């Protein structure tokens, strides 16, 4: 019996390969993603010293369509103070996201997560998912989904981190 249990234990880890869910006060993972519609790369290191909102979005995600204009406004209002908004797209095909951008204005940095590797690493539980990082790249606030009162919450959090 004990032998069978040991065999079972060998197989259980094979089924668990998802990234660990990110928590507050953890460092946001390093990334090196291409910008949407260009070959230019963007890394987490480039955001050093800035308050950052990292937002995972997709063209098929309805709440994302509501969130993007709100993030545009926040970015416009606070970019002079050192805010950076990084929008990471997780569409299957980059062209779908490019088509989306023809009809929807996205003023902040637009990156494309090829193969959804970063999304998987972050073990996102909702779409959209947003992380507010302080100047050291540490996660200070996490937003799961998008709700009506979120823009005010984002602003309050950003002000706290400036």
């Amino acid at each position, binding site marked *: 019996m004990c032998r*069978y249990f040991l065999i079972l234990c060998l197989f259980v880890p*094979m089924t*668990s390969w998802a990234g660990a869910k990110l928590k507050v006060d953890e460092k946001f993972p390093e990334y090196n993603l291409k910008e949407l519609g260009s070959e230019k790369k963007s890394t987490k290191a480039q955001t050093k010293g800035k308050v950052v909102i990292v937002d995972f979005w*997709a063209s098929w*995600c309805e709440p994302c369509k509501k969130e993007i204009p709100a993030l545009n406004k926040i970015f416009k209002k606070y970019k002079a103070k050192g805010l950076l908004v990084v929008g990471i797209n997780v569409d299957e095909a980059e062209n*779908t996201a490019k088509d989306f951008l023809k009809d929807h204005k996205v003023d902040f940095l637009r990156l494309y997560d090829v193969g959804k590797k970063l999304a*998987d690493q972050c073990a*996102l539980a909702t779409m959209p998912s947003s992380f507010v990082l302080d100047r050291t790249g540490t996660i200070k606030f996490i937003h799961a989904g998008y709700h009506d009162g979120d823009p005010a919450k984002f602003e309050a959090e950003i002000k706290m981190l400036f």
Partner: protein
Amino acid sequence: MKTVLIVLIAIIFGAGCSTFRKRVAPFQREFLAKSGMNFIENPEEETGMQHMFNAREGSVGGFGGAGGGCGCN
């Protein structure tokens, strides 16, 4: 030996049913989010049908309908 083999095969197949990764992650639902994946062709007609079922058969539910079967809600 035969028992061990059977147990091993059962574990291998059973691992596929493991709960760790059975859910489609939210960021992987692009194709599921397409309108063609929706069973309901006409949402308004469906709402009416559900209301009728809820009103006529109080035990029928699970679609978020309100009311206890009196047909007044």
